């Protein structure tokens, strides 16, 4: 969980929600940011595009905060680097 990674995720979330960047931190819960289920899938799409990964459907339900999003992305990137690159094109 690097600072750079956190920065990219928080800025992605802020951009999707049209929030000032400083409003979104690693400790933000989606609910507190007013993110509903449709916003959620939109943010996941933005994160998939940003990090060139594919977040599996079964992993999506557990992601309810910025921290959980960063952790999920960390896991995906380290576990399936090759797979992630293949998905990325």
């Amino acid at each position, binding site marked *: 969980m690097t600072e750079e990674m956190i920065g990219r995720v928080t800025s992605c979330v802020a951009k999707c929600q*049209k929030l000032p960047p400083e409003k979104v931190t690693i400790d933000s819960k989606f609910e507190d940011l007013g993110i509903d289920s*449709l916003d959620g*899938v*939109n943010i*996941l*799409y933005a994160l998939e595009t940003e990090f060139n990964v*594919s977040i599996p459907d079964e992993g999506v339900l557990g992601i309810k905060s910025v921290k959980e999003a960063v952790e999920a992305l960390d896991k995906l990137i380290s576990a399936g680097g090759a797979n992630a690159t293949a998905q990325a094109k």
Partner: protein
Amino acid sequence: MERRVVVTGIGVVSALGKNAHQFWEALVKGESGIRRIEQVDVTGLKFQNGAEAHNWEPQEHFESKQLDFVDRFAQFAVVAAREAVADAGIQWTQSLREQTAIVTGSCVGGKATEDDSFQELYLRKKTRVSPLTIMRTMENAGASHISIETGITGPAFTLSTACSSANHAVGQAFRMVRSGDVEMALAGGSEAPFNFGHLKAWEAMRVVAPDTCRPFCADRLGMVLGEGGAMMVLENREAALARGAHIYGEIVGFGMSSDAHHLTQASTEGPARAITAALRDASLQAEQIGYINAHGTATQVNDPAEVAAIRLALGGHAERVAVSSTKSMHGHALGAAGAIEAIATILALRNSILPPTANFTKPDPRCDIDVIPNTARRAEVEYALSNSFAFGGLNAVLAFRSPR
């Protein structure tokens, strides 16, 4: 007993302006909103002109977060509905919200969104598209956003019958209010067809004019696509009178038919039967009709067939009735056309001014009826019709009465 149904609020976004007032001002002047298309790079298209909602700034109407979820066609529906609701001066109660319907028409829905999204797959070879694609594209998006914004919880749905969509929508809403199914309805349609793929599809049909829309003229070259949204508040007349609402006019009949003939070849009998059905529904004689807002697309096929249909349905009175195609000014807004033209018709009756067929050059002998060429006409008319005839042979005609 059946109720009488009046129009107490109107809203229009079109090539003729951002509201109903600007729309009517342009219609009376015979001003055309047809210009060079700006939203799409028209290089490589055989036609370059369209009737776009000029200077449309979505940010004036929606928060930026909200805009991600709302395609242009649904924006038009929502903004027209806001104008109509404000115009009608409705005081919402929970009970009224439950007894109000929303019926919208749209032919192509959020095709522009779909076009953008699918380019990600086909052109940029991405493996995924935006999860908002479906929500922005669905034809009922306009009705859904209106429901969410106004809190209306009564029946809401969307009809898609190509160029007749909005007339079918207004007709169903009219019947729901007339039968007492609902107390009130927001009815109309919206369309935003300007995206490259869709324009190419129209080009392939060879029915779009390279210059402008000249209905009923000998040298007409086809239709010109338009966009926009138009919504009306329909209300039980007794309730409208009781609350002192301003009454623009009355919807008195609705007729439908299908051609069972051909996807694009116009029929005379099908449209004539829809006109006759509207007259019958309104208990009107042909001689009582003083104005017809024609479908009047200016394609080679439509105009003479429509004139023949008017003659077949109205008999000798067809030689005396005034007819105009306002598509010459606001373009052919497909699934919104019927609603835009319904408002043109209602305002014509209310203001005693019949809008003209603009861009008129020389008459076509096959369309030799009174088409109000180029200049609006002052006339007291009590009853009028508005025609919509769709590709696929689906016809819908509304009958209106002046508020006097």
